[in-house]
């Protein structure tokens, strides 16, 4: 603590320092591009904060549970077993798909990343109402923290997937592994865009979080996770319908993941130009991310009073 006799100096020094700093206007972003840039810079300034929030999310989630982090493994493994036994064995899907367990787990890993980001960031603004009502922070941080904690869980699941693929697969290391990177980028970009938008809308209309639950369920079955893309092609034919089905960014990412990790599926048909499709989808996704960030920053001005 400063001794009181120093305080006039401290006072003068503070006044000098303050006088040299320009007056900042709070929260006025008129032009969209400059506004987006300001937001990105603000978030960049809060990197450490973002890290802490991610850690808080992870820590708080399993805080009082005896098994703790194990739960983030138990869930996907149970899911895997259910799909493997029920869909694979009882319904007989495994017969047409080699290494069915790896196949399912590949799709689930990709899809879980997407669904977890979207679901948790949709709830993130409301979940952090206490902070938002009391302190100014760039609010994008809360959905982004959800992206961070979902990514952490994804990495664990990915590690299991890689180990399993190495154990089961014949040739785990191939150039096809590179499909992983554009696929995961597409998932992250689309999930973040959707999550940002929905987190802001959810503040004004709480129905959004239930809508998202339903939408995520549909999306799961709309992508080739427990069945193959060729089964869809056999039914839809090679026309526009198949094109629409394939253009779903989650479908493309799941297919990309399967190319990378499901080595047993060497001979099974995949859509043409998968890499090009992923690239185009990624570009579109970045534009969507930009748009949803603009909408978010437009809506965030009233968060504190709507919560």
């Amino acid at each position, binding site marked *: 603590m400063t001794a009181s006799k120093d*305080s006039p100096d401290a*006072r*003068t020094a503070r006044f000098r320092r303050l006088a040299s700093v320009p007056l900042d206007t709070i929260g006025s972003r008129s032009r969209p591009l400059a506004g987006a840039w300001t937001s990105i810079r603000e978030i960049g300034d809060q990197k450490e904060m973002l890290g*802490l929030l991610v850690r808080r999310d992870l820590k708080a989630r399993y805080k009082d549970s005896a098994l703790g982090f194990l739960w983030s493994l138990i869930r996907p493994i149970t899911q895997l077993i259910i799909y493997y036994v029920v869909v694979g064995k009882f319904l007989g899907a495994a017969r047409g798909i080699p290494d069915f367990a790896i196949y399912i787990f590949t799709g689930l890993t990709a899809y879980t990343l997407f669904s977890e980001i979207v679901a948790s960031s949709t709830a993130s603004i409301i979940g952090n109402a206490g902070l938002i009502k009391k302190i100014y922070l760039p609010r994008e941080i809360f959905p982004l923290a959800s992206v961070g904690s979902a990514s952490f869980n994804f990495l664990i699941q990915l590690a299991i997937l890689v180990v399993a693929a190495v154990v089961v697969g014949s040739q785990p290391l191939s150039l096809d592994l590179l499909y992983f990177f554009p696929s995961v980028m597409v998932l992250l970009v689309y999930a973040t865009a959707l999550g940002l938008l929905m987190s802001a809308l959810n503040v004004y209309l709480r*129905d959004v979080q239930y809508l998202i639950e339903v939408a995520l369920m549909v999306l799961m079955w709309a992508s080739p996770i427990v069945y193959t893309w060729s089964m869809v092609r056999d039914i839809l034919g090679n026309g526009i319908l198949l094109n629409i089905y394939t253009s779903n960014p989650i479908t493309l990412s799941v297919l990309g993941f399967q190319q990378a990790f499901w080595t047993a599926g060497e001979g099974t048909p995949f859509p043409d130009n998968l890499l090009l499709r992923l690239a185009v989808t990624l570009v579109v996704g970045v534009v969507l991310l930009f748009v949803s960030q603009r909408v978010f920053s437009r809506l965030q001005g009233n968060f504190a009073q709507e919560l």
Partner: protein
Amino acid sequence: MNSPLLETSSDAPTPAPVVISAKDVSKRFVVRKDNALKERLVTMGKLGRQHRQEFWALRDIDITIEAGTTVGLIGHNGSGKSTLLKVIGGIIQPTTGTVSRRGRMAALLELGAGFHPDLTGRENVFLNASILGLTRKETEDRFDDILSFSGIGDFIDTQVKFYSSGMYVRLAFSVAVHTEPDVLLVDEVLAVGDEAFQRKCLDKIRSFQEEGRTIILVSHSLGQVTELCDRAILLNRGEIEFDGNAHQAVTAFRNILEERRVEEAAAASPDVVVHEGHVLGATVHAVGKAIGDPVLPGDDLRIVMTFDHDDKLNDWIGALQIDNASGQVVYGTKNSLMDVRLPPLSGPVSLEYIIHNVTFGSGKYFVNASLLDSALRHVHDMPQACTFNVPFYPLATGTVHAEPTLRVLDAAAHQASAV
């Protein structure tokens, strides 16, 4: 307690820079009565307008705050003071107008600014300090100070959800003051915490003032405002009613409160039960002046109270009591103390008290009139039957008026003369 403010911003060698400037700030709130999608769809368009209610929480607010000042925001509930604080803090965006600021800002709004209930106190300190702009290293360096100031002790490693509300606020306040803010926003949090901690907070605020930090505080404790602030802004229905000296702002605020009270009392009066005996009313004014004129030190105060009894009361007492605005008794007298026996009360009777040569300190005072029987039982009381004001006196505070003078004594000579 009442240390004189020797330093004001104008005395500082460096001119104080502006830290906060608000221009034409207005804030409109829209209250909707429907919140679900179904209701919203059903009541869209024209019908939807009926489900919306708009009100202006702030209207055309223009303020500039210089570094080193302590500003109190006062006003009754719903006057917009908390909203203004949130707008300054950047938590709420104004509908129109802009707010600019410089320097590091820390805000203490309501309970425990942003603690996560499932994390321990220690984890929350790091999280909270980071939110307020400290790096991990800086927080580690200050952690011991934060902990000892909060007085949380071993509970620091307990989850925050098990904390009492006092512990919560103590830790939050401790973190906020240790983040070295240039501007500290405080909303009504000092009311929580025990007296020792409140004293500690006030001491901290004092040292903040000496270090040239700016403090903006919302408080319902008018005593605290006059004690701490060198400027106060009085808000009424979202507009600035008064901006300036804290004492004058508090007086203006008390006048508003009094107007409201009279309005409410007038609205409620038809329900008043008529007792057998009752106080009909009272007036107060300085002798030679009209009712409502300010009462100056040295005036004689004339208080006339009217009593009535439906039946007949033989031995009765008409008592008066003068309270200051915080409800403290300043003066009281009655005829029994003055050894005056009154004739039986069987119809309206007025008593005139003259209180000679009053020397009240500045502020608003309330006169309570009471009718007592011979056993000193209160037959009927009329609290705050009438009021008077004593004008602001810049040289002293308190409920007594007296002129101060000051000279500096040579300490050695003083001791010698004392011996």
